[in-house]
């Protein structure tokens, strides 16, 4: 008998005080441009942290450094107690950091199901031969992984799209599939780069709901880059503000909104934009 719908068990919801990610004084230069200049931050297990800042503040660069896409010029990153500075992205993913991209990076010709299955890749153990024959371990593994992927499909309400190629999907749905693929990795830390960029109000509300549910139901620690202030202030435990590669403020959503440095940074960019126009 199906026992109702039990919440999927990825990891126990931990809201302990332990530090999951410690970034110390990392910097990254591109030629003469200082993208990230000596940023430090700490993320604790189970937290939902947002990084905000004007365009070009270094938000995506910071995410790229954490996920191993960029090698930092200086500073160190410690994840779950072990240094990961300068490791290859695949290694970092295997350690439990998953991400989504600002510009959707899905395999357009593949179905929603296959794209998400791909996220299970790091957990697959079967060899080439047994996979080819679909026998023994390979078969058991496939069934187990598929069950896990079905949980995600249900969680993100993608049931009606399982067999559809992602290239034909609406933008908001592709973003959701990308989130599902990142979650398929069963990450300890989830990095989301503008998951709501380019969405309409309704899609944004749905997405915010999903992100919040992932964090609350499964205890997945999340770092979110987002431009929509209403969403950020609504769902974050803590907000970190970057401007021109530096951290200029950090605190609860309310504290950050009142911070004079933050107000200046945002008004400043607005004035510059007006001048440029």
């Amino acid at each position, binding site marked *: *008998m199906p026992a109702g*719908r039990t919440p999927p068990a990825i990891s126990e919801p931990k809201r302990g005080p332990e530090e999951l990610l410690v970034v110390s004084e990392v910097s990254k230069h591109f030629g003469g441009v200082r993208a990230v200049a000596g940023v430090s931050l700490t993320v604790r297990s189970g937290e939902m942290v947002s990084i905000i800042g004007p365009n070009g503040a270094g938000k995506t660069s910071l995410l790229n450094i954490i996920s191993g896409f960029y090698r930092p010029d200086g500073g160190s990153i410690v994840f779950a107690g072990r240094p990961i500075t300068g490791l290859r992205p695949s290694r970092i993913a295997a350690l439990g950091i998953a991400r989504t991209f600002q510009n959707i990076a899905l395999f357009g010709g593949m179905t929603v199901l296959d794209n998400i299955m791909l996220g299970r890749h790091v957990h697959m153990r079967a060899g080439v031969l047994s996979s080819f024959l679909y026998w023994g371990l390979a078969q058991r593994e496939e069934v187990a992984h598929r069950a896990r992927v079905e949980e995600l499909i249900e969680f993100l309400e993608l049931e009606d799209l399982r067999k559809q190629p992602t290239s034909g999907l609406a933008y908001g749905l592709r973003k959701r599939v990308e989130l599902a693929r990142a979650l398929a990795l069963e990450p300890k830390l989830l990095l989301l780069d503008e998951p709501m960029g380019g969405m309409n109000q309704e899609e944004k509300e749905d997405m915010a709901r999903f992100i919040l549910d992932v964090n609350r*139901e499964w205890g997945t620690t999340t770092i979110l880059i987002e431009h929509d202030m209403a969403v950020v202030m609504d769902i974050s435990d803590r907000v970190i503000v970057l401007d021109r590669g530096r951290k200029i403020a950090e605190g609860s959503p309310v504290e950050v909104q009142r911070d004079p440095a933050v107000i200046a940074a945002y008004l400043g960019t607005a004035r510059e934009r007006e001048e440029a126009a």
Partner: protein
Amino acid sequence: MSEALTLPRLLCRNARAFAGRPAIREKNRGIWRSWSWAQYWQEVRDFALGLAACGFRRGDKLSVIGDNRPRLYCAQLAAQSLGGCAVPVYQDSIAAELAYVLDHAEVSVIVAEDQEQVDKILSLKGRLPHLRLLVYDDPRGLRDYEEPLLASFDQISAKGREFGAAHPGYVEAEIAKGAPQDLALLSYTSGTTGPPKGVMLSHANLLCAAAAFAKAEDVRPGDNMLCYLPMAWIGDSLLSLVLHQLVGFTANCPERPDTVQRDLRELGPTIGIAPPRIWENMLTAIRVRAADASPLKRRVFDFFQRLAEAAELLKAEGKKPGPAMRLGLCLGEVFVYRPVRDRLGLARARWFYTGGAPLGPETFRFFRALGVNLKQVWGATELSGLASLQPDGEANPDTVGPLLAGGELRISAEGEVQVRSAAVFQGYYKDPEATREALTADGWYRTGDAGYVDERGHLVIIDRAKDVGQLADGTPFAPQFIENKLKFSPFIAEAVAFGHQRPFVAAIIAIDAGTVGNWAERRNLAYTSFQDLSAKPEVRRLIRDEIARCNRTLPPAAHVRRFVLLNKEFDADDSEVTRTRKIRRRFVAEKYAALVDALYGGADTVALSAAITYEDGRTGMLTATLAIETVEAAAEPAREPIYA
């Protein structure tokens, strides 16, 4: 029917007689999962015990809100087991409607599907003084709620098992106390006028209608049905709850509302019912797909479709098709009819029904021609959902069949259809005045439908009695008849016809965004929104030609002479249609009085500002200038192909 049957007693019987056979299935995480009759009964008993532990007593009312889920059906049966009454409500109701029904029915327990529904109920808490317990099925997102009213389905069932250990035989004893005349279901009619009314139906009422249906159609335990229509609709209650218990077939719940079409195909149900709206949508989908196919396939499809429709017409006249036609039909079965039926999930259908509102004859004939045993049924919530049905071999688009066994029929002097049977309801809840209006002293129910009985004994429904009017020159005018003709056009989603006390017939038309959008794209006609699309002169011409074609099938007096394209779709949130998608004609006429005046004035354009309601209950204004088009009684225009 044997004596003293109630729904819970039937469930006990089924748990013994069919023990290991599937009672209900649900598609979850991509797999169909079955509950046997024994498990179903256990689930109902545990939940009933849990309700009893929480103080649910005889005569209390339990409401369910959500998509069709096995546990929501369980909850209704659990309430009935304790001598209570089930009050299913529409899951897409906006807050104000919901508060009215739940408060009016004095519901003490609500079983909600998920967080969305729980949030909705909690927002109304202050207006529901009778509410004591709010149960949810899916716990997602509800972890951190601190709300004393709230409990999960599993918690209540666990509580029930404890209570059951302390009180052995409790539910069984309560079921034994139940009587057929107990109130089983309080079904709120979506009401084309005024606030919803609570129709009181007893076990005996419901089982009478279900038994007559089962007898007429030979429904068997091996049958399969997909439960996808709103649980609050009497049609779903009658089939998925009552007939299901009476016959013991297998009910199936789709994965999600969006997957119904796919689930239907996987399942291949043997029996099902769909309102005209769904048949119309299916037909439109088939036509769009056919238009997208390669020219060869399109020709093959068109040829065999015309052939089948010709054969269907011959059959209706009582003639037999010749040998060439029979050969053609055999080929068609292999190449077209069967594959299309399979696509639609109708490959194993023994019968399918359309009911709730009349279905356009062309749409009806289309599906019959494809080999779907589609039949019309007619009923009313007040008649436990079903009163008449077409026997096999006598299906036709014009009648709704003879009255079911056990019922009596008469036509009043004013032409109103009246019915008397054991299925006639007990009255409207807390509304004796409305009850007196609807029921005569000797137990006849006034259906409010105008109709007559034809020479074969089939009932023919003309329209709602109060809607049937006269044109200014005295010609009778039945708006629904004209609207159904119009809606056969794949480009027209909804139509409202006017003409009572007017010199001619005029219509407000809502275009079908899907097909018209498709049509516009094929012509490289750029548009941004529904509003923009509906304002295109090309689209207006397209619809004008469609109406001109439709006029040819109408008597000259009933020709639609002027029309206007509405800049939005008719929406239940704006109260323009009911939750079962019937046009609320009077409301529309009042809301769009400016449009109606303009249709009968000489103007070519009209300024319209209309209130719209968003899904979350917020409202806004939509202002636009709409163009009014005149349809000349000209020669027949060439058929506008969907493709080109």
